[in-house]
């Protein structure tokens, strides 16, 4: 059982009257990936900035690898890497110069900083652009350089703030591969994302944030199963068939959406689900209803997210 290398307790941070982070607790076990998922303005970036010592919370405690991030920032800074939403590199220096400078500021020896810079340039496929000013780089190249800069010390802990925002699909897949290989080498990663698919693909654990609060905290699979397993969705050709089907399926807990001419029925997974689906379809078929098409829909994180945020919105409206 890995120890928790990032522990945050009761984080609270406001900017003027805007509450950005409103009581966040989180832990990240060593060697795992935690994804902070949420829309713009949910407070994800603020949490990362607090954990990475860039911001002091109004209240709360942060421990990173046993160091108190508020009282021992230098110790924490020596073992973390941070790649931000905006590429944090110097546009007027070349890629190589950027990496060398950052290596020196991590207090590497001159030669070590140089060797490491060359290694990373090679590894991140920036060789052709190594001697060019970074302001001539494309967005994807800048992002790669930025990540390379945060990996100079092969930090055991890596914070990635929306690492793939603005990247094309190729760049995004490349970034995912890099993140996965880092974690397989023992790095602990905390990343933020707006993409549900990204969190689903990468994370061992997902925290969904909205309005500065945690609204869900679980594994991707548990989140999906909480929202209900599978749904049999049947679309009808006309309203008449829809009504008749509704009568036939009253016992099955069916949900009807008249505008879409659709009925959705929760079904179990596996063999039991198969029998359920077979029974429902054969009863519809026996009644000679006009079915346009049907499919089995497995809950995605989008469903989870929509359901949770809608719930959060409606409950806050009630207050």
């Amino acid at each position, binding site marked *: 059982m890995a120890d928790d290398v990032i522990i945050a307790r009761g984080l609270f941070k406001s*900017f003027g009257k805007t509450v950005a982070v409103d009581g966040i607790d989180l832990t990240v076990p060593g060697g795992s990936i935690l994804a902070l998922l949420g829309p713009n303005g949910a407070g994800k970036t603020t949490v990362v900035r607090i954990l*990475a*010592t*860039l*911001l*002091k919370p109004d209240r709360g405690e942060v421990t990173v690898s046993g160091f108190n991030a508020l009282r021992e920032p*230098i*110790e924490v*800074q*020596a073992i*973390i890497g*941070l790649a*931000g939403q*905006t*590429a*944090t*590199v*110097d*546009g*007027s*220096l070349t890629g190589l*110069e950027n990496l060398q*400078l*950052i290596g*020196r*500021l*991590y*207090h*590497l*020896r001159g030669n*070590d900083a140089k*060797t*490491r810079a060359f290694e990373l340039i090679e590894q991140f496929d920036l060789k052709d652009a190594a001697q060019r*000013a970074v*302001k001539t780089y494309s967005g994807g190249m800048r992002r790669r350089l930025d990540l390379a*800069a945060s990996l100079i*010390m*092969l930090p*055991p802990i890596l914070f990635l703030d929306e690492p793939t925002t603005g990247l094309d699909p190729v760049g995004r897949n490349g970034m995912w591969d890099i993140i996965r290989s880092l974690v397989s*080498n*023992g790095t602990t990663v905390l990343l933020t994302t707006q993409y549900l698919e990204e969190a689903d693909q990468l994370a061992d654990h997902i925290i969904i944030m909205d309005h500065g609060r945690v609204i869900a905290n679980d594994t991707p699979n548990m989140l999906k199963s909480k929202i209900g397993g599978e749904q049999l969705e049947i679309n009808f050709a006309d309203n008449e068939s829809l009504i008749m089907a509704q009568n036939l399926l009253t016992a099955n807990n069916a949900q009807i959406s008249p505008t879409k001419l659709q009925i959705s029925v929760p079904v179990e997974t596996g063999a039991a689900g198969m029998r359920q689906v077979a029974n429902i379809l054969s009863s519809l078929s026996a009644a000679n209803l006009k079915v346009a098409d049907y499919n089995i829909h497995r809950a995605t994180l989008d469903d989870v997210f929509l359901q949770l945020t809608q719930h959060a919105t409606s409950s806050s409206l009630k207050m």
Partner: protein
Amino acid sequence: MNMITGRQPLQRPRLYWFFADSFQLLIRSLLHIRQDLDQLMTVTLQPIIFLLLFRYTFGGSIETGNIGYPSFLVTGLLVMDMAFTATTTGIGIATDLQQGIIDRFRSLPMVKSAVLVGHITADLLRSLLTIIITVAVGLMVGFHPHAGFIQWLAVIGLLLLTTLALSTASAITGIVGKSIEFVQQIGFLWILPLMFLSGILAPTTGMPQWLRWFADNQPISQVVIAVRALLLDQPAGDHIWLSLIWLIGITVIAFPLASWLFRRKTIQ
């Protein structure tokens, strides 16, 4: 992890890193000159243009006593050039703050105030270049210094101290300013009156009494009179001491203030 064997960070006292980190950021600031034509012009072309313009437009009509106008002008312009060079620090810091690079620096185990020191010390080197250019072009257009080695050394020291004081002050505008353009504008806004309300371009004798009192006593004027006296072999009076007191005073007040503002701006 085996992969970083031999690449462990060096362990040194914090004071060592203050100087070492500042040095790295000084080099960074100097490397910027390649990309930043604006900065290069401020340091090289602008001093030459000012010198030639004033030399050949005002040169014939300004009465400067027993010293020729070229000598009067060059000794004043040297101080003015320091002030223009000092604007680079403000603009550089504003640029760092606008770009994401500041977050990178702040996430590193470096001494954070080295960011300020890097910009300020780079200004000192740029000033040195400006001094050489101005003196060289000056000599071609009629500047006749009467100074020995010691006097030249004292002048260079005074000029660099001027840059130090003004760069530190300029750092504050860079931290407080809302945009790079604003910092650029504010740089000129405070430099120009100080430059014209001094004896740099013309003697202050023609000014109204109240204005002349300010022009004769403000810090830039003290430095101008001291530099002129040292290079043209004239009595310096108290002006060297007054210059030192002003310049060191400004630096000693402005640097802690800038560091404090910088910390406050970056860690909220």
